[in-house]
């Protein structure tokens, strides 16, 4: 109700948007769906001089195939990720992650790029991208670069995006044969920010896990890939998982009004185990 006045600029291309950001010099942010930006502004947590609207840019929306990968435009909305046939066929983990985001309204407007650039450490999509080892395509209008998901999300609400840089698209590997996936989340209420969420991918051969990717959200300043857990479960069968995974090291979850750090620590292991069991079951199905 009380957003402080700012200058609104509407861009028709990513290059326009990058130019507008450059022109604003610092106190500017990109708005796409606005589902994270405007709540923060309404709550008085953020004052900006310029807001650059990229929501009408058509070049960065939609899902396409790119050999063993899916390429997803940054302006693709959560609801499209949930229901896109390519996503459902080739990387259903992503559809599951998207369906855990907020409410149907938020999923109707919120965009992949918006969620990734917001870089909330408890958010579902940065988690899924981290687990999948996604590559992010960044552009400032004149040059582009590729950054891996776990480099991109550097800290709480912080990314490696330069002042005049935007996220253009994301490339994620397709789910290969023999792989299964799991996505588990606990929040206080459905649609709330995750207390902890786990995304897992495992490849099973001969009844044993031969390869895996495990990541958690809500346990650190950014989504965390759990290399130690991945090594510890190599060769494991479904029944071994509980014994192979001890207390998960290296987590630093916060205490806030929703849960304590200790509880998030506890959930980290519970959800990792459950998501791995789901992934294993799918892999052998």
């Amino acid at each position: 109700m009380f957003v402080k006045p700012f200058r609104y600029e509407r861009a028709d291309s990513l290059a326009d948007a990058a130019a507008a950001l450059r022109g604003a010099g610092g106190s500017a942010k990109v708005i796409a769906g606005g589902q994270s930006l405007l709540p923060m502004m309404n709550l008085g947590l953020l004052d900006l001089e310029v807001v650059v609207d990229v929501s009408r840019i058509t070049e960065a929306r939609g899902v396409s195939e790119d050999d063993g990968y899916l390429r997803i435009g940054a302006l693709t909305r959560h609801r499209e990720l949930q229901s896109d046939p390519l996503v459902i066929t080739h990387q259903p983990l992503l559809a599951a992650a998207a369906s855990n985001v907020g409410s149907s309204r938020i999923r109707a407007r919120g965009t992949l790029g918006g969620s990734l650039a917001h870089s909330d450490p408890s958010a579902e999509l940065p988690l899924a991208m981290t687990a999948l080892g996604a590559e992010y395509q960044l552009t400032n209008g004149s040059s582009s670069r590729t950054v891996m998901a776990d480099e991109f999300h550097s800290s709480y609400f912080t990314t490696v995006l330069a002042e005049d840089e935007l996220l253009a698209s994301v490339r994620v590997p397709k789910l290969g044969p023999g792989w299964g996936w799991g996505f588990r989340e606990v929040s206080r209420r459905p649609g709330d920010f995750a207390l902890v969420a786990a995304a897992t991918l495992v490849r099973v051969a001969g009844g044993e896990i031969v390869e895996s990717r495990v990541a958690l959200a809500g346990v650190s300043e950014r989504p965390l890939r759990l290399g130690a857990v991945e090594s510890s479960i190599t060769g494991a069968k479904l029944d071994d998982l509980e014994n192979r995974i001890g207390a998960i090291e290296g987590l630093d979850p916060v205490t806030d009004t929703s849960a304590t750090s200790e509880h998030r620590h506890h959930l980290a292991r519970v959800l990792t185990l459950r998501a791995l069991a789901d992934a294993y079951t799918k892999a052998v199905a």
Partner: protein
Amino acid sequence: MSLDEIRRSKADELRIVNKPLARHDAAEKIAGSTRYAGDLAFEGMLHARLVRAQVPSARLTRRDVTSARELPGVVAVLLGEDVPNNEISVDVPGQTIAVGALKARMQVLATDRIRFHGEPIALVIADHEDALAAACEAVEIEYEDLPVVSEPEQALEEDAFAVHDSGNLLAEWNIDLGDVDAAFAGADVVIEGEYRTQFVDHAYLEPEAGVSWIDDDGVLNLRVATQVVEHYRDVAKILGVPDSKVRVIAPYVGGGFGGKEDMTVEPYLALATSHTRRPVRMQWTRNESLLARAKRHRNHMRYRTAASSDGTILAQDIQILSDAGAYAYLSALVLLYSSVHACGPYRVENVRIRSKTAYTNNPPTSAFRGFGGMQVVLGYESQMDELAKKLNIDPGEIRKRNSLHRGDKLPVGQEIITEVQLAETIDAVRERAGDKPQPSHSRAAVGRAIASNMQSYGRLVWLNDSAAAWIGFQMDGSLTVRCAVPDIGGGQASSLAQISSEVLGVDMDRISVHFGDSALNPLAGTTTATRQLLMSGNATYEAATMLRDQVLDAVATETGQPREALTLTPDGIATQDETMPLQKALQICRRRNVAVEALGTFFGPKGKEVTKDLQGERLFPDFTFGTHLADVEVDLDTGQVKILKYIAAHDVGRAINPLSVEGQIAGAAVQGLGQALLEEIVMQDGVNLTGGFFQYLIPTAMDVPDIEAVILESGEGLGPFGARGIGEPPIGPPLAVISSAIADAVGARPTTLPITPERVLQCVQEGSLP
């Protein structure tokens, strides 16, 4: 008539009352055309916003509004010095003997001392909304921090920092009955427990809002979201003008639950308009609402219960300490409710209750649905459940064995004068429950429990409550009802139409109810304390019966027919041989100088003001009884709780509108479930950490199952047609029934609210499960 006479009615003889009618007010609501307090706009209207304290406890060393006043768009910035009488006062009753006549006061705008995070300091008025944020930031405030008292226990320590000069003990109540120590000494079994409830926010969907203007007669009008139009008097006092110069209009309110019982935007709108002489709108943000409006008291309750081996309760020893927050508001009364309801719907012959409420630097606490009578349900029903388990007696059976009955006395001495159908409510929920469900996965456990309660309806008797309503026939036979009752969504206006229709035979669509206006309608008192049906309902009933008698007497005289032979029906006046059109009867009245309108005034029962030692007193008109049943599934690894089934049965005497009654039961149950599992205003050293609806977690449609509301009708209540109040009673049992159901599932009892997943996991660890 005397209030204690029960206006009994026979369900099969009722035409409109007792029928599940779609409410007339909902027609506009579903069309999107209801104009709530914040929906009205005037050309050239100003906007106002408060500058609030950023710290919980401080001395104000500097307040400088110079630069704020110079900003573009700013019309005025007011400080406490600009307020004619910078004081909102609350009388604290019953404390006269203990501490002298205690007048609790708070400033409208703080001038020298801050006692809670969010306390108003300055009022910014601007000609457009966009100017407000910058102007508020430009008000320069400097603080000298003072110690923060964050816990009531700490507040009552001998060397505690004084939140108020009068000391930190705001009020205390004592109840003593029988010989408690002897009863404990002779008991077969003793149960002990300590229970804690949290700060809860009303979280109605409509944040505080209103518009003010000065009308053509120079009267200050406030159209605000409120449960109490009578605050016009408080506003007049602040402005230093006669009461007759202020009018409060309450449009349909977007939820109240007690949170709009104390003033919110009223004094500030009044100041802004009286200062600028222009219309002003004030809209609190959700953040402000969570930060600064009074909360539900957190209670710390210690219970000891002595019983014999057959489950009969012999004695209870209860201590209650509640957090009054920074200012008095209604804390003393809320604590009185806690004290009087502390033993629940059971006969206990030896009782010792010691209760205190203490000032802290937390947000003020005040009225909230259940008003102190609901927190204690967690105490007495947890005790009852533990007792049943210890003695291996069925939880329903043990409650029935101890149930109050008509003629029994509460520990405070008040006699129960209506029938108590507690046992019937227990049977009702259990008959419908079916078998306890099986867990849905291997790491889940399922639990079932019941919890009963009682809750007063109607205000404390010494407050000399009264309500008035005016009913008039139009000459075409349609009907106008005028009653200043605010309608906060519970169907207050629509039930008055139903009562009038029943008595006067006029169809519902020919009745208009004008409500919520302190100047043009007869005053009916507050929409609080589950009193409107009792008070305005009875006043309307009185007015309607007076009007009926006036008309029928006139017709009897005119026609020579016996008065008993005449009845009012939707088709007109049924006489022995014909039906006389109503219009004709009204013409007869006019010709015979008989009024076709009537003013009914209803007076509540009387009692003398209490002292802190409560003894032998009647405090309330009457009580409503009920029982809830819940099945829950607990995830033993995550601590998440899912409510599988929920049934709530209450004896409502007579349901005026069963749809409204079901709505009250289901809505209150869900609000109680929110308190049981989710909600908390989280404080840290006086700083309110709960800044928005993303942090204050009220139940969503996925957090609760269908609530099966069961209406029992004993026909015994003090309202019209034998109705009991039902607005507040169903909010208490959820606290206990969820706690007990989790205890049933995991083998250990959660005793602190909200029962977060972490607290559930602690119970899982303590419990007996693998």
